[in-house]
């Protein structure tokens, strides 16, 4: 007991000292120093071999030649890429024991998948609505190590399936905007996903909720009654269109029959509408993505559309999607930009997706493996490739949460 009192006093004293004398804490120790990795930090325009120092869960410094003598732990990362923790903009993580997605078994606990893929932040794509967001928050968000942000579904109970998602009475723009404003740290936007009718009411209410709360709208486009051209016209700069590169029965493809990106899609892009991948189990096809990339329609983010029925399919995790784009011809720097800083911009969270001094220490250390690989799309078709991105190490708020090969660990017989 006495010991405990002593240690509590010590902790108090230490935090007081840290609080009062920031100069001391700066000169003090580095918790983790990642040496000589190739740092890609798009926000800060860094694309070079550098060291990254982490202290107290934050980025302390990014610079070449940071001395190792102040570091408690040194991790050698030569030959590896050091990037901000990846952001998966499109997931379904409101896992629970009911059937379906909202509070359901079709969602996935993010920690099962994220850290092994270098992801430190996921954004839930409207699995909950204003009515059940508090359950989502206490049941999953607060229990997960992954940072979970969310788009709030315009349907008040979120993704409860057909037909309950068709209920216009359950789409309340004001309530949606009020709950968004109640949780500004977590909720980053509104989502409209599934609606089979041909009236614009749900869509307009979602837009209205977004306007009221000052957040973007994520359009998931299972909206067979609403023409794509009109949808894109209604979207504001900064709104997000997901499932962008697929062939699906309930929506218009972004390419026309001759494989050209439709002009109104390019107009929307030029206006500032953002395009997310949203791969999922059925929503990414090379036959669309490859021509789109060639014609300059690039995804702003690599949202995976993670859920129980996509996780073992052509989509394995977001790194798998990034590897696809790497083999389709995008540069690793551009890919990392879109998976970090550009994704942060889409959700207006400029505190994330970058390695500025003082930013939360969410990092990924990635390896680009060379060999003979293959990647499958949602149609079960393969793209051959010679590179695959793997996560060696993932750090969330300064803590190592994934270490594939023990690069941060001492040998068992020398400790």
């Amino acid at each position: 007991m006495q010991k405990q009192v002593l240690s509590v006093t010590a902790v108090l004293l230490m935090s007081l000292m840290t609080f009062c004398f920031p100069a001391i804490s700066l000169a003090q120790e580095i918790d983790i120093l990642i040496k000589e990795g190739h740092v890609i930090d798009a926000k800060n325009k860094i694309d070079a071999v550098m060291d990254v120092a982490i202290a107290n869960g934050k980025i302390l410094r990014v610079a070449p030649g940071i001395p190792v003598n102040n570091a408690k732990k040194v991790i050698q990362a030569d030959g590896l890429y050091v990037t901000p923790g990846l952001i998966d903009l499109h997931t379904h993580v409101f896992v629970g024991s009911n059937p379906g997605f909202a509070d359901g078994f079709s969602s996935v606990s993010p920690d099962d998948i994220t850290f092994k893929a270098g992801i430190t932040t996921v954004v839930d794509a409207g699995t909950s609505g204003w009515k059940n967001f508090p359950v989502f928050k206490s049941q999953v968000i607060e229990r997960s190590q992954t940072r979970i942000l969310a788009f709030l579904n315009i349907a008040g109970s979120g993704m409860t399936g057909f037909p309950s998602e068709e209920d216009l009475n359950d789409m309340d723009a004001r309530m949606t905007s009020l709950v968004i404003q109640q949780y500004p740290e977590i909720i980053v936007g509104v989502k409209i996903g599934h609606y089979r009718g041909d009236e614009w009411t749900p869509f307009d209410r979602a837009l209205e909720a977004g306007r009221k709360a000052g957040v973007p709208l994520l359009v998931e486009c299972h909206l067979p009654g609403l023409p794509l051209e009109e949808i894109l016209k209604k979207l504001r700069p900064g709104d997000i269109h997901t499932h962008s590169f697929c062939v699906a029965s309930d929506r218009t493809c972004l390419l026309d029959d001759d494989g050209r990106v439709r002009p109104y899609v390019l107009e929307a892009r030029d206006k500032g509408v953002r395009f997310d991948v949203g791969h999922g189990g059925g929503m990414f096809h090379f036959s669309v993505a490859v021509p789109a990339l060639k014609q300059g329609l690039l995804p702003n983010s690599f949202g995976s559309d993670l859920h129980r029925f996509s996780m073992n399919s052509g989509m394995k995790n977001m790194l798998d999607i990034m590897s696809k784009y790497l083999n389709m011809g995008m540069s690793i720097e551009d890919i990392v930009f879109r998976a970090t800083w550009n994704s942060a911009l889409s959700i207006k969270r400029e505190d994330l997706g970058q390695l500025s001094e003082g930013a939360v220490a969410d990092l990924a250390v990635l390896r680009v493996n060379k060999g003979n690989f293959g990647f499958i799309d949602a149609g079960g078709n393969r793209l051959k490739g010679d590179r695959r991105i793997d996560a060696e190490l993932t750090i969330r708020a300064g803590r190592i949460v994934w270490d594939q090969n023990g690069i941060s660990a001492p040998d068992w017989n020398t400790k």
Partner: protein
Amino acid sequence: MFLLKKFNFLTGYVPASILFLFYFLIISVTLQSQTVDILLKGGHVIDPKNKIDAQMDVAIKDGKISGVALAIPETSARKVIDVHGLYVTPGLIDMHVHAFHGTDPGAYIANGWDALPPDGFTFRAGVTTVVDAGSAGWRNFRTFKSQTIDRSQTRILAFLNIVGEGMTGRFEEQDVTDMNPVMTANMITRLYPGILVGIKSAHYWGDFTQVDRAVEAGRLADVPVMVDFGEHNPPLPIEELFMKHLRPGDIWTHTYANAPGDREVPVDENGKVKPFIFEAQKRGIIFDVGHGGGAFHWKQAIPSVKQGFIADVISSDLHIGSMNGGMKDMSNLLSKFLNMGLSLQDVILRATWKPATVIKRPDLGSLGVGSDADIAVFSLHTGNYGFLDVRGTKMKGTQKLEAELTIRAGKIVWDLNGIGAPDWNAVP
């Protein structure tokens, strides 16, 4: 294998080539008349039960293994997957997981957040069957079944906890009045004999009472007992547990844990395996790895393996506390044992046929013709790798298994590199 055995037996009488041709013809005729759904061509098959360790083809039809033989003709198959250079094994059995995921506030593993729906961890590691290690007891098993087992693609079997409430929490798990051998045995024999394969005793702070009740239930239901022994202060003697309380065929899990304050360990302070451990293994006590987040230490595992004390079964103890740590998944665990010096064949045995026999499910863990087509295809990579234990220390290694393809009941449920897929620009 029946083919090779007869082949050897008869070579004295009939020229080998004629005999081979004869069998080949029979096989090809049979296979051509019944179209094969998937043909795995040219892989190195390791099927310990059937003593196959050679390059062979594997044919799948209607969700079952329809043939394992040399040179099965490609013309008979709807889909041919070239697996040259890869290892084809029975789908792995992970004999120790916690899969009773749920949202019960305050619950630990039974219907709780610490357990995991298995599909996110199994197929990508070549696992097709998991055995839940007592997350549920007889009172809440039905919830486990409807909520997780019936909804998962992975085959989920289970040890039923001797505690009626299962692993609701350490506190509840001490309730001796909730350890009912008759109710436990009845649920196994009368209600779910196809799913429940044994009984679990775990996390008990008292004397041998819990183990004894579990063994009593095990006798009543004729199933093995798995014991997670520990948390006694001071630790109870494991020699007494192995020699007096458990029966041959009963299982001790967390074999290579190193927490001498809580549980007696097999390797003493001088790095020697205690002699009675070998006697216990001889007596038929089954040693299970149950790696978990706190139960696998290089300090125990490496000296044990060097001195010939090798766990009978390699299993993960999958739960949220192990999934992102040193454990990761079964392919990582098998790689650890490979790099400690076990042969690939031995490692595969300990994650397929061996656990199948321990849980008395001879229908699983092999590639026998007629059995469910649960199959894993692995790459064996060479390079510089590291493997973590739960203490956060590393053993370096040069070999790593990776699951290329996993098939569950004839369906492809994992294809890492699209070896089972056509090229996108070759499809009309």
